[in-house]
């Protein structure tokens, strides 16, 4: 797999630096990075947001915005020998893109043009690089669709992108990248936007790309599990610099740099939280289980109204669960499973259309907003996206003071300031951060401030809707720690919604698994993760890639066995 002679490398990056011109002056995104990728090799570039991994990869295709300037060399292997992408003109770049190097994007739903048939879009690359007859292009499109695993490609070639699922769309994007037989594919977070079960399928497909088409792959990702699953060699980037580079087994087994070690230790692993959950369960007073639950759903059904003349969409269908005081229920499911809908229904943001949902003694089915408003001071909510959960024109202190003002506990933000300061300390933020505006905080800090706002009125119930899914793994670890500490201190009950089983495992006392609007399994972490009963839970669990290449290889086979079972 390793390169025999440097002249045969699929791509060789030498001393690459990229700077961006911003309002605040020049910022260097990539700093003297040298990398090489041998033919047929999978190189994973890992790092957190802002580490320069995407910029490095985009340079290989010459896809930098106008505000960027670059120095160094990116030598790409083509049919006509090596070319330096940094110095190419636009016209030369067009000739290189496609046959020599192509790209798989993160978000398959935006990478495809919705108004053209997928066959047309695949053939577009063929037409751009040589005269191909319509018939031949179509035949080739069908052929490549079959190879990437789209069933019935003869018919599907005439479908529009919206007629495919997210995973199938990503397959088509990969087909577009493969159709000209490139020597190198740059895959920028190819599975980040996908559910974990679909992610496993796409990773399989990428592995086949390497085996069947002989393409080298540059894989950009922040997910160490994906790295362990697919990569041959790993390059770790931090602050625009290359921190460490080694083959995949070495980097996981014996990381050299502190940063790499920290990155690896921050990745949540299944089984970490089970012990803690058992400890907490043992510490509960007798009779706790019989206490009146904070939330009780029975036969809960939530239907979104359809368009005129169409049936509505049933997001949640006949779900039963309870959350007892002081208990954290982890709700896991993939996108569209209805987990967020349940969280929003408990907060009164979505209407309950059937069954019963009792929140703090109030029936939510048919509740009037006016009546429910008085209950709101006893519910806290943490939103998924830290970027938009604060009013950008208010300071953090003003935002956190909102609950006090709205419920008449304080006249204005200044009045509530001492309590706001205490809250900021509780989430381990300096008091002075109260005077900052939301954009002056990092994502992890904003999410902690969001926690502070949610617990401002010491509510007995907290709803956390994917609070860490937009965060880098090291930041996620810290937010989860803060969450755990707060839960121990304040003892609120919590519905913790997440798509990541490993995250839920860390924080939750009990875990509920949602699939297509139904609750398929519920139990303690030990029961659900240790001995899953439902087939879907087993598949979900097996699809989760673990950050250990040896173990992951074994898990991959186990997953294939589960899928084969059906």
């Amino acid at each position, binding site marked *: 797999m390793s390169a025999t002679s440097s002249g045969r490398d699929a791509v060789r990056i030498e001393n690459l630096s990229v700077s961006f011109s911003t*309002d605040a*002056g020049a910022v260097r995104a990539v700093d003297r990075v040298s990398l090489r990728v041998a033919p047929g090799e999978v190189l994973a570039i890992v790092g957190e947001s802002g580490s320069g991994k995407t910029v490095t990869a985009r340079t290989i295709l010459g896809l930098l915005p106008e505000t960027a300037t670059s120095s160094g060399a990116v030598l790409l292997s083509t049919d006509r020998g090596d070319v330096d992408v940094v110095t190419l003109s636009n016209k030369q770049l067009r000739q290189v893109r496609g046959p020599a190097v192509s790209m798989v994007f993160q978000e398959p739903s935006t990478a495809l043009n919705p108004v053209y048939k997928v066959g047309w879009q695949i053939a577009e690359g063929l037409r751009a690089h040589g005269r191909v007859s319509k018939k031949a292009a179509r035949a080739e499109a069908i052929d490549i669709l079959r190879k990437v695993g789209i069933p019935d490609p003869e018919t599907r070639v005439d479908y529009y992108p919206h007629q495919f699922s997210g995973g199938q769309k990503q397959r088509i994007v990969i087909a577009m990248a493969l159709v000209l037989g490139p020597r190198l594919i740059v895959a920028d977070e190819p599975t980040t936007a996908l559910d974990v079960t679909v992610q496993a399928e796409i990773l399989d497909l990428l592995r086949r790309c390497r085996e069947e088409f002989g393409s080298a792959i540059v894989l950009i990702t922040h997910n160490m599990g994906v790295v362990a699953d697919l990569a041959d060699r790993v390059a770790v980037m931090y602050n625009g610099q290359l921190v460490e580079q080694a083959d995949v087994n070495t980097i996981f087994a014996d990381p050299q740099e502190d940063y790499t070690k920290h990155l690896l230790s921050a990745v949540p692993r299944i089984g970490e939280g089970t012990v803690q959950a058992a400890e907490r369960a043992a510490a509960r007073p007798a009779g706790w289980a019989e206490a009146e639950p904070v939330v009780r759903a029975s036969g809960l059904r939530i239907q979104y109204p359809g368009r005129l003349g169409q049936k509505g969409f049933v997001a949640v269908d006949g779900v039963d669960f309870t959350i007892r005081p002081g208990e954290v229920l982890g709700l896991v499911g993939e996108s569209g499973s209805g987990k967020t809908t349940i969280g929003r229904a408990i907060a009164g943001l979505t209407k309950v259309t059937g069954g019963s949902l009792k929140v703090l003694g109030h029936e939510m089915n048919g509740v009037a907003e006016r009546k429910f*408003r008085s209950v*709101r001071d006893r519910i806290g909510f943490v939103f998924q996206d830290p970027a938009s959960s604060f*009013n950008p024109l208010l300071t953090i202190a003003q935002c956190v003071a909102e609950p006090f003002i709205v419920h008449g506990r304080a006249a204005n933000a200044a009045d509530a300031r001492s309590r706001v300061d205490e809250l900021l300390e*509780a989430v381990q933020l300096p*008091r002075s951060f109260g005077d900052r505006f939301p954009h002056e905080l*990092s994502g992890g800090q904003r999410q902690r401030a969001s926690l502070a706002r949610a617990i401002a009125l010491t509510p007995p119930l907290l709803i956390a809707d994917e609070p860490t899914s*937009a*965060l880098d793994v090291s930041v996620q670890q810290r937010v989860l720690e803060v969450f755990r500490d707060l839960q121990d201190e304040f003892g609120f009950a919590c519905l913790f919604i997440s798509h990541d089983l490993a995250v839920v495992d860390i924080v939750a006392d009990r875990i509920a698994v949602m699939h297509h609007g139904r609750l398929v399994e519920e139990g303690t972490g030990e029961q659900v993760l240790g001995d899953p009963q439902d087939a879907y839970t087993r598949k979900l669990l097996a699809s989760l890639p673990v950050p250990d290449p040896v173990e992951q290889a074994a898990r991959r086979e186990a997953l294939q066995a589960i899928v084969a079972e059906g």
Partner: protein
Amino acid sequence: MATAAAPASRPAKRPLLERLPIIHQLRQSMGVQRGMLVTGLVITVVFVLVAIFAPLIAPYGFAQLHGANGKDFGSQQPPSPEHIWGTTVGGYDVFSRVIWGAQTAAIVIIVAVVLSIFIGVLIGLVSGYLGGWIDRVLVVVCDAIYAFPTLLLAIVMSIVISGGQSSLWGGIFAAAISITVVYIPQYFRVIRAEAVRIKAEAYVESAKVVGASTGRIMFKHVFRNSTRTLPLIFTLNASEAILTLAGLGFLGFGIEPSSAAEWGYDLNKAIADVTSGIWWTGLYPGLAIVLVVLGITLVGESMNDLADPRLRGRRAVAAADGETADISVVPGGPNEAPGGLEGLEPGAGIEAEGIEVRE
């Protein structure tokens, strides 16, 4: 750790002068964009100054037909030392009329914009945030107004308001209100679109979950975040207001010459002069209209470009220039927590996340 002092290096806020709207943009701009903005600003400032000091600048009144000696100016006199831009067919001094016309135009812009901005913003906010049948009705009404030719509507309005007769303020209000009717839908549309977008933002939902009342959410959270595009429409509408006023005057629905000076009216009276070789009566009012509209539009367009980081021009940087910051690199966006990122994540081994950008 929790009580860690704030980083001492946190810089003060930018000085007040730099945070003022136009000055901020001026400092931000460069190249062609700066040229556009400066040209527009110069023209606009001159226009405003002329409007304010018209009584001092103009040698004669707008309705003055004869000088201090009681002798008539005479009709269609060519430019001369007494009348540097000549006189009109009605015997008025062209230079004085053009100067006074700036005042009329400025008043109409102010009245029209003030009237339409408040109503437009308010109903836009209500319509966008509350939605439902109110929204549907308002959208249909505004679309219906859009469907009318604006000038025709303005004519109808001016007849309804003043019966076609015009005193100074009667004429100004007739013009301003007719312009208002046409503009409310524009403000409405823009604010409504912003309100609909902001309604879905997490911080509005968060206010809802906290239990804030609808009014509080609407004004504290939605309104304050939806006004950023207003300066742009303001400038674009101001230039259109001048055109509509001139159009009304040109068609004979404007302000009588004895009530106020108005460029459109003067242009109308100058039509016949053109064929007889009298160029000065039409040229100067026409130039005044073109220049003011150009100036205001340039300001609006360049502010629009500067407000969008993707359109904003920047100085080129040398290859591999700049520091690698502990932060994301976002082409086109600010990417630094002011005060640096030192100590932002106390205790953590990685202080690197900065303002995260999902790439």
